[in-house]
């Protein structure tokens, strides 16, 4: 039973998706199943995390074929952490969407597809095989296409066309990279590749492959010259969908980047310079893009791009402390970005607009909710006791140590601009006198909603805020965790041994 633990998060989401398909027309039942199932998901992820924390990396080989030949699922501490965060975000968004997504959308299979999306995310985090990673990516993007188009409004479809094209392009580039790498090394297992790629004579071709991987994952994680699909599409679907997208979809690209470039291509030094340049430009362009937007959700979209830059910078510096900083930032960012888009949905429900100019007086009308929101904003900006501060501290220290002042400048400027944007948002949306009259539309607003729906809407925001606060105030625990992850990533030998050693035992 416990030996297969690694696959349980994946199987659970698959099972939920299938069960929900049977309840196609019964929206009420779907809501209950989805929320209860996500709670089970959190439990499973916690059990997995604790067992990995105590016993180290665990492997499941599909069909018990020995490692380099079979598809393996590898749960190391990095994957387990991300599965845990996915389950938190999944639970929060399941609850949030049952309150805020229109029943008409829920009738067209919103919840099954949502769980298939989580299935793909868990699979991508846990797999140890490159082609399998491609398949999980496809599951993720197909589910996300459906989620982004469900409802079929004009803006949604246009956003979907852009989102769709660039993500397909990214997948094709990724597939090309896999093809070339397979041609070079004859293997798809990541641990096996780590050994084989180091021995390949033709370094130029390896570098080309590495670039292909970088472009493929870079489009998905929305780094500097490749991010234009993101602000064009993330504000169009319902806020619950944006929340799961913003929290996790770009981060799975970052995860793949970190995984591939620490494990398979650790020697490509020239790529690190590219990473650093890209990171600096991502930080600048994201922050400046967010500055001029008027739609709250577009501001948040640009902030996603901006903050991807921190993680890429950490990867570009490629020291243990910097990677630890990047991991810490990843952990913090998944929670905060999920929360931000849920907050944007909440603001829309309270006031009926997404426009910063039209909104106002939120603090006057809803002081308690505003206090809840400011906690999350502070985490985003990284005011010292809150969660965004600690990873930036490690990144900055490390950038000073390797004397790369471009990174120092970019990190400081991006943090400052984030602060400025949030301050502008706060003074405009929360303090300014409101001129807006709640307009009638097909949406239900907060005061029209039933009591338990309001709870379902607020509870996930409170839940994620508490996690964010925990990440901030108990930063030491998270730092220990990130350092352990960074240590495993920088010294991949135990990972490789864990995956490949079983073969030798079987051969003997």
């Amino acid at each position: 039973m416990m030996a297969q633990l690694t696959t349980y998060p994946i199987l659970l989401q698959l099972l939920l998706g299938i069960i929900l398909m049977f309840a196609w027309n019964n929206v009420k039942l779907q809501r209950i199943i989805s929320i209860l199932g996500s709670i089970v998901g959190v439990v499973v992820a916690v059990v997995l995390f604790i067992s990995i924390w105590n016993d180290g990396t665990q492997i499941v080989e599909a069909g018990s074929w020995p490692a380099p030949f079979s598809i393996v699922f590898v749960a190391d501490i990095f994957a387990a952490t991300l599965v845990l965060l996915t389950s938190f975000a999944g639970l929060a968004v399941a609850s949030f969407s049952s309150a805020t997504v229109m029943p008409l959308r829920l009738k067209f299979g919103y919840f099954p597809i949502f769980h298939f999306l989580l299935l793909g995310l868990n699979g991508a985090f846990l797999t140890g095989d490159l082609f399998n990673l491609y398949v999980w990516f496809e599951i993720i993007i197909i589910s996300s296409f459906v989620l982004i188009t469900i409802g079929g409004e004009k803006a949604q479809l246009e956003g979907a066309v852009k989102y769709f094209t660039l993500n397909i392009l990214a997948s094709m580039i990724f597939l090309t990279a896999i093809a070339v790498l397979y041609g070079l090394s004859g293997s798809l297992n990541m641990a096996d590749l780590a050994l084989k790629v180091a021995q390949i004579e033709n370094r130029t071709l390896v570098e080309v492959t590495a670039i292909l991987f970088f472009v493929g994952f870079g489009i998905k994680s929305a780094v500097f010259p490749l991010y234009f699909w993101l602000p064009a599409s993330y504000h169009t679907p319902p806020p619950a969908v944006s929340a799961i997208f913003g929290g996790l979809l770009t981060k799975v690209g970052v995860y793949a980047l970190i995984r591939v470039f620490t494990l398979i291509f650790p020697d490509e030094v020239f790529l690190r310079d590219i990473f650093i340049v890209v990171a600096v430009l991502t930080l600048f362009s994201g922050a400046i893009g967010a500055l001029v937007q008027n739609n709250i959700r577009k501001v948040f979209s640009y902030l996603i791009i901006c903050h991807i830059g921190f993680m890429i910078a950490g990867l570009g510096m490629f020291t243990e402390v910097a990677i630890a900083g990047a991991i810490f930032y990843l952990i913090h960012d998944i929670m905060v970005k999920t929360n931000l888009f849920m907050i944007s949905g909440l603001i829309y429900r309270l006031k009926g607009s997404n426009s910063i100019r039209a909104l106002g007086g939120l603090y006057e009308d809803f002081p308690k909710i505003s206090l809840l929101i400011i906690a999350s904003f502070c985490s985003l900006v990284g005011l010292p006791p809150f969660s965004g501060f600690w990873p930036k501290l490690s990144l900055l220290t490390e950038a000073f140590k390797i004397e790369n002042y471009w990174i120092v400048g970019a990190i400081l400027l991006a943090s400052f601009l984030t602060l400025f944007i949030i301050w502008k948002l706060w003074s405009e949306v929360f303090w300014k006198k409101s001129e807006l009259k709640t307009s009638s539309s097909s949406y239900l607003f907060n005061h029209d909603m039933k009591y338990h729906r309001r709870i379902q809407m607020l509870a996930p925001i409170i839940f994620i805020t508490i996690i964010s606060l925990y990440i901030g105030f108990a930063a030491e625990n998270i730092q220990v965790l990130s350092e352990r992850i960074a240590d495993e990533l920088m010294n991949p030998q135990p990972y490789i041994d864990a995956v490949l050693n079983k073969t030798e035992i079987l051969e003997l």
Partner: protein
Amino acid sequence: MAILIGILYAAGIYMILRRSLVKLIIGIILLGNGANLLIFLLGRITQGKPPVIDEGANILIAAYADPVPQALILTAIVISFGIQSFAIVLIKRAYKEVKTDDLNEMNATDEES
């Protein structure tokens, strides 16, 4: 074969860069086929040598056709098929809703709201 793949990639990317939605789909299809052929080519195609181990032997000694790329291509074809059919439905819906197939006119998402 290598030249064919090059043509498929080039034509695919050219088509994606066009403004018409239909050409976009054609570009995606071409690119997908190019990628599949690339896997096929890089799997070292060998003719008439099935990877079947002879009776009495334990491992394959002679060169043999690698079965893995074929499995990969099969998976990739199925995936790209699904994606293409989704793409066609998507542009049909988008065309009905926006009433244009020119990507330059699809800018509702950039307008101030």
